[in-house]
């Protein structure tokens, strides 16, 4: 249900942009107003969400320790998985953010004849890493449409991306990887019963959206061969705050742009905020140095606890009879 | 709250049939509890129950089996001071069954 709903939503978005351009000639709306609104929503929303999280304190230092603690000098500490310094915690975060360290550990449990076995299961790790790395690379490559002159790192990445040197325009591998990885993530949700069971519309929607974005991108580049110079005119107009609508850009471009705008605007209100959130995760970004440095809880308040005096008052006679020393005779 | 009816009186017990208040206990009540389990209490049973009650009176907790065994061995001889003997008397476990007949609550925590 969730999947069908999300699929229909994305189709509707595509049709909306198509009709908007083809029937209503709303180029300015789809080429200028929506993108600006989307970017603004994305930036402000993102900042708002991060600030909102930041208003809740981290009252306790609760890292999940995944390796040997720092203890006796001859015991080898796992300085990354159980960091005791900020440096260790930083390295841990870098591994987490860029290489999905925790997901790399993934196993698959199997029950056979009443016995549980655990196999290494790296597909989810591989799929999501491929997804994220290609998404990032593609975004970075798109800077060629937003900067003039195009800086050399952008060229460099594109050259790497096109290292297969197939066809013209050169086949860029990340586009297909993104599409395949997104399809893989989607298929998981369809085919694995447990994952299907937990999936919400909010899980399918961004996947369909990204699949649509990647597909329209691939269509534009390899099949419809839209006029990239005009596209860049439009994008440069946007980023230089001199928006303009060049003539004769194919409608597919407006669909692509509209879907990206939707993704940007949707981002801060969705689970996609894991991008910012992962940095704040207290089980990962803290070092396990509790026994060396006292962690302060800003809302720590005094509680009424039972004191020794109350305790002795209740048990004084019994204590004395048992020969246990007391404060008051 | 579950209750136990006996000789016209109603006793509050917990979900597993332990008396909520160990002081309302009486010997006939213990006999009745055993009878409901299909068990006739012999002198050997009563020795254990009395020891449990004495211990509880002093320490406000039922003794752990180890201490029970040791004390029984001290007073009744080593041939009775073993877990096997106690389990023969109380097949469902001395800690659980005997404590229940003795009207004592079940210990809780990391046990």
């Amino acid at each position, binding site marked *: 249900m969730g999947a069908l709903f999300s699929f229909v939503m994305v189709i509707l978005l595509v049709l909306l942009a198509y009709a908007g351009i083809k029937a209503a000639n709303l180029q300015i709306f789809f080429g200028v107003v929506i993108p600006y609104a989307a970017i603004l929503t994305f930036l402000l929303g993102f900042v708002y969400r991060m600030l*909102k999280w*930041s208003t*809740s304190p*981290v009252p*306790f*230092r*609760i890292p*999940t*320790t*995944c390796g040997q*603690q720092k*203890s*006796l000098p*001859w*015991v080898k500490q796992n300085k990354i*998985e159980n960091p005791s310094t900020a440096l260790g915690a930083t390295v841990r975060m870098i591994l*987490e953010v860029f290489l999905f360290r*925790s*997901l790399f550990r993934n*196993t698959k449990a199997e*029950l056979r004849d*009443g016995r549980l076995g*655990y196999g290494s299961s790296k597909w*989810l790790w591989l799929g999501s890493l491929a997804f994220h790395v290609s998404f990032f690379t593609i975004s970075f490559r798109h800077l060629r449409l937003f900067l003039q002159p195009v800086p050399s790192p952008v060229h460099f990445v594109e050259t790497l991306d096109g290292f297969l040197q197939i066809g013209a325009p050169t086949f860029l591998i990340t586009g297909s990887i993104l599409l395949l990885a997104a399809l893989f993530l989607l298929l998981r949700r369809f085919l694995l*019963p447990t*994952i299907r*069971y*937990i*999936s*919400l519309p*909010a899980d399918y929607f961004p996947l369909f959206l990204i699949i649509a974005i990647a597909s329209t991108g691939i269509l534009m580049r390899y099949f419809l061969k839209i006029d990239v110079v005009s596209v860049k005119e439009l994008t440069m107009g946007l980023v230089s705050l001199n928006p303009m609508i060049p003539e004769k850009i194919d409608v597919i471009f407006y669909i692509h742009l509209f879907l990206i705008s939707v993704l940007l605007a949707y981002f801060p*209100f969705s*689970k996609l905020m894991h991008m910012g*959130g992962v940095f704040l995760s*207290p089980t*990962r970004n803290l070092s*396990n140095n*509790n*026994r*060396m440095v*006292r962690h*302060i809880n800003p809302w*720590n308040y005094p*509680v009424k606890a*039972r004191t*020794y005096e109350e*305790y002795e008052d209740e048990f004084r006679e019994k204590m004395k009879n048992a020969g*246990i*020393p007391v404060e008051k005779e | 709250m579950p209750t136990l009816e006996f000789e016209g009186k109603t006793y509050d017990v*917990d*979900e597993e049939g332990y008396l909520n208040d160990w002081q309302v206990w009486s010997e006939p009540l213990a006999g009745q509890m055993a009878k409901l389990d299909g068990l006739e209490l012999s002198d050997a049973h009563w020795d254990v129950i009395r020891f449990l009650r004495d211990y509880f009176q002093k*320490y406000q907790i039922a003794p*752990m089996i*180890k*201490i029970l065994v040791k004390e029984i061995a001290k007073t009744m001889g080593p041939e009775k001071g073993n877990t096997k003997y106690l389990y023969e008397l109380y097949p469902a476990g001395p800690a659980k069954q005997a404590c229940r007949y003795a009207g004592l609550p079940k*210990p*809780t*925590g*990391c*046990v």
Partner: protein
Amino acid sequence: MAKLPTPDELSKINYKPPEKRWVNTPAEFKDGFWCFGTRPKYLQAVDMPNPREWKPIEDDWKLPENWKEIFLEGFAERLKKYRSFRLFMDICVRCGACADKCHFFLGTGDPKNMPVLRAELLRSVYRNYFTTSGKLLGKLAGAREITFDVLRELWYYAFQCTECRRCSVFCPYGIDTAEITIICRELLNLLGLNTDWTMGPVANCYRTGNHLGLEPHTIKSIIESMVEDIETITGIKIEPTFNRKGAEILFITPSGDLFGDPGTYTCMGYMMLFHELGLNYTWSTLAAEGGNFGLFTSNEMAKKLAYKIYAEAKRLKVKWILGGECGHMWRVWNQYLETWHGPTDFLETPVSPITGTKFDYTSSLKAVHIAEFTADLIKHGKLNLNPSRNDYLKVTFHDSCNTARGMGIFEEPRHIIRNVCNHFYEMPENTIREQTFCCGSGSGLNAGENMELRMRGGFPRANAVKHVHKHYGINMLANICAIDRAALKPLMDYWVPGVEVCGVHELVGNALVMKGEKERTTTLRSEPLPEKEAKENV
């Protein structure tokens, strides 16, 4: 009481979720899965809300009129107080990596025991009241109202989580279901919805300082009984002290070590070791409990129960604290204690009086784990050990969840075991260290009425033990946690008969050659040493 299925029946688990969506499927309370509701007297004893007689299985939970309001206000308050909570409500992408990492899911196949879904039970409520999308889109955004059915479901599944953090190891964002369960239980406690087995120890602990409700003279008599046993076994009379001012070290261990077998043998091991070292230490009858069932109730309750630790250290004017083998006690000490009750300027950085090792990694908490303490002694060759006394044992080591994932103490106990036993084998790597499986009974779930749940939750652990039992003939499962010692015993009897359970310091006590001891003929369990028996039979 519910009848426990046989291991054969129980190990047939179906992991395929039903077709019907979970949102519309109310929790079905299965016998043997849930614990009795708390009795009013326990709540009254510690001033917690809504004390009354109630039964989880009944339809009337006798909730206050405005229970929704209380629940939601509590929810809002905790979102403001805990970044972990707010963040973990927001950022889950439902990738499902956590699903088959949970021992309760692996043991029950109940989809709501997948950590992601356990959290979604609460997240769905969060979305409805605290997010724009949930308010606008409702069900489409995965939001749902807090109804009585939802509350029942939250209760049922909050007490089917042992807060073991295994899911958190695999989560790409480190989402820790324990944090969510802890707060879910706090919210339930606002309505008086705890379990009897958790609340009883809390009430006891407040009054007497320990979960079992052992009064000061009882503690002394129990320890004296152990002293007798030690004398019988070794011929050495040791003289522990209680509430002695001016001792160098305050020793604190979970009260399970004082009361339940096999914890008591571990306790004897501690005392024999301390005697042999001539350690200047004291027991406190008030701080005779490191465990803290308050952690399974609410932050405030946990803090109240932890107060005695530093208060007694201060009153008795000791220099530092030595902590026994306990799982959640060490999580509490490592992650909460000093934040609650520090600073600890009245104590000194711990120094081993035997080896001179300065434990400067605990310069602020000022508490040393006994495994660290003993490992240091062994490393410096300060103990005369005869590991062959443990030759009748083939030992494996179970990492306790809390010390594994809330602290990271892996090598120290292993170093000890390797030096006091000749036969030590590890369980498969996906089931030890940070990937260790819970005993299935942690976080206050070790009651009697939920035995099926416990046996199911402990299935992955038992399964790994079974593996080494079969391959190496393992007959002893060592650990450093009192709940483990209490819970693994029935678990082994159920799944892997023939495997006993012990604390690491029981093994130390067996192997320790004490000055002036008589020739030992029995183990600390007063069972004949097999080799001696064999010799006598020749």
